[in-house]
């Protein structure tokens, strides 16, 4: 197990280095962006009827003073704070810690993404098996094509279509938000029911989005395994069909676990399309909003977290694989 621990440590270290690279990259990228957060607010004040001077003064007081340190000094400061878990303060919500915003947004991304992923994984894998077994029949072919089609369609297109059908047309499901505001948040049936109701469409979008991928991956994996010698060998040994199905299933699904973790990262990174469409207050939405208001710290924080999620997913994928597959386990 020490080998395993060493490997884990190595992965984590590499992950940390990557996080540092990304932090550095985002810091300088974000500081190269044009437009100041104040500009946006300023114009809003002007439209609310403040004089330019008033608006200017108000903006100055709300956003505080811009740092006059050199960029590098700011960078060092940022890193220092980051090490202590301090992501800085939001600009557009003057003074609210970025970590606070991110923590409150995080569950609204993680939970739908995870549930969407799991739902699509279960359905996709089953459909993939069917598509593989029936690959020479018309239905099997149709199933595969539908899988590729769904996999190829952009996420927001799916989300829009779902919204059109289930909200605009049938008005079955709400189109925005996470829950009904009149329900008291907490572990009560009303609130949970409302949350679930609101989550249906986003989760479905996530699920649809990745379903095709699973179908295709599982199909090709099953086809490969079906061609493996040991499957024929087990047939020639008279192994019961149920057992053989288990053999096929386990061998075929194994490579998918790596992908599972990876696609968590990918969906996380692409969540803003869906979150924007359903006005769902997750991390992607936060990132979009912060870009709109030029809220650099939030922007950097959200971007960082998304990246960390991807890196973590990668490490997880790796570990997953080594834990499940005896060939690399020791």
């Amino acid at each position: 197990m020490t080998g395993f621990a060493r490997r884990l440590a190595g992965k984590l270290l590499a992950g940390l280095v990557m996080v540092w690279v990304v932090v550095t990259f985002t810091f300088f990228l974000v500081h190269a962006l044009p437009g100041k957060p104040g500009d946006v607010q300023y114009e809003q004040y002007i439209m609310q009827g403040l004089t330019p001077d008033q608006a200017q003064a108000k903006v100055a007081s709300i956003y505080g003073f811009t740092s006059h340190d050199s960029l590098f000094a700011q960078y060092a400061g940022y890193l220092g704070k980051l090490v202590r878990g301090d992501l800085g303060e939001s600009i557009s919500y003057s003074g609210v810690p970025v970590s606070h915003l991110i923590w409150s947004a995080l569950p609204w991304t993680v939970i739908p993404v995870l549930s969407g992923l799991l739902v699509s994984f279960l359905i996709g894998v089953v459909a993939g098996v069917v598509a593989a077994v029936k690959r020479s029949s018309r239905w099997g072919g149709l199933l595969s094509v539908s899988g590729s089609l769904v996999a190829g369609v952009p996420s927001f297109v799916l989300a829009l279509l779902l919204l059109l059908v289930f909200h605009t047309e049938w008005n079955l499901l709400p189109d925005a938000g996470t829950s009904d505001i009149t329900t008291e948040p907490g572990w009560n049936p009303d609130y949970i029911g409302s949350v679930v109701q609101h989550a249906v469409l986003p989760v479905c979008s996530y699920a649809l989005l990745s379903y095709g991928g699973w179908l295709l991956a599982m199909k090709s994996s099953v086809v490969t395994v079906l061609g493996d010698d040991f499957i024929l060998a087990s047939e020639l040994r008279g192994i019961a069909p149920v057992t053989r199905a288990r053999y096929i299933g386990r061998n075929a699904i194994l490579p998918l676990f790596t992908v599972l973790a990876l696609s968590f990262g990918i969906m996380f990174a692409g969540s803003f399309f869906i979150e924007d469409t359903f006005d769902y207050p997750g991390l992607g939405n936060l990132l979009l909003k912060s870009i709109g208001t030029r809220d650099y710290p939030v922007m950097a924080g959200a971007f960082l977290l998304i990246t960390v999620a991807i890196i973590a997913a990668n490490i997880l994928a790796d570990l997953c694989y080594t834990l499940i597959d005896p060939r690399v386990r020791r």
Partner: protein
Amino acid sequence: MSEVQVRGLTVEYQTSAGWLPAVAGASLDLRAGEITGLVGESGSGKSTLALSLLNAVPAPGRIAAGSIEVAGVGDVVRLTGRQLRKVRGGELGYVFQASQNSLNPLKTIGKQLLDLGRSHEVSDLRALIARAKDLANRMGLDGDRVLDSYQHELSGGMRQRVGIVFALVLNAKVLILDEPTTALDMLSQASVLDIVRKVHDENQLSTLIITHDIGAISEIADRLAVMYGGRIVEDGPLLDVLRRPTHPYTKALIGATARITGDVDAARPLPGRPPDLTTVARVGCVFRERCPFAVAACADTEPPLEAWEAGRRRACHVEPSTVLAGQPGTPAAVGEPA
């Protein structure tokens, strides 16, 4: 007494040119206590024949005609479903061509053995394990260790032996080995062959062993059948066939085998290239294009496989004596490109 009787077996594959026979009208007996060797070039239909003994011709193939009577079971060709499954592994043990990969990589050997036992409704799994260990030990493996191993932890030769254990652990009386030594080096090959012989003798099996290496087969087989282009062209007791090959193909095959001693120049390559499904002759003798003895009749009638001497059969228009004498008319071709 024949344990397995193959009669008029024809196996076809679907190709873009239609259904073509990979095995045509093959008849073969596997006798108790005897090792039958089946040799032939690549693509001659050996594996197809072996798989059809278990009624397991892979898609897109089918058994088009013929019967395979297995003692105590009946005609395997007619079996389906559960009965067929019971026969596979239960009566007929099969050792896979690429035996290196015939094991589930995600399960230990022991667990797979239990799967096998459960699939065949073995009531005493403990006894099954004990028997497997015993078999393994007798093959020079450490039974306990092997059962706890994953496939990737075993070497090629070990996996081959585990494959034999799996084939025999349910007391199959018939053992079929498809190219058991092809991927192995000399030392491993020798030990595998040795083990096969030992196991065969100890269990009084009927064994069919398939190879394209006539040298390897001559080490252990009792009878020899030679296949070419989907036909069995000659068979008989091994020593007799080797000494007195009466089919031009058998003769050429023996002659093309590199030997470790003797005159280097005595060996000759076979002219031409082996046929496959699509190129094999549809009428006449399948070997005639490469046959130095070919006569006019070879072009339009296919010679039947017939006994010509006690215990010997051959499928050739040319007189046995002519072939034995080794005086062909004019060689059809020399050098490989035909």
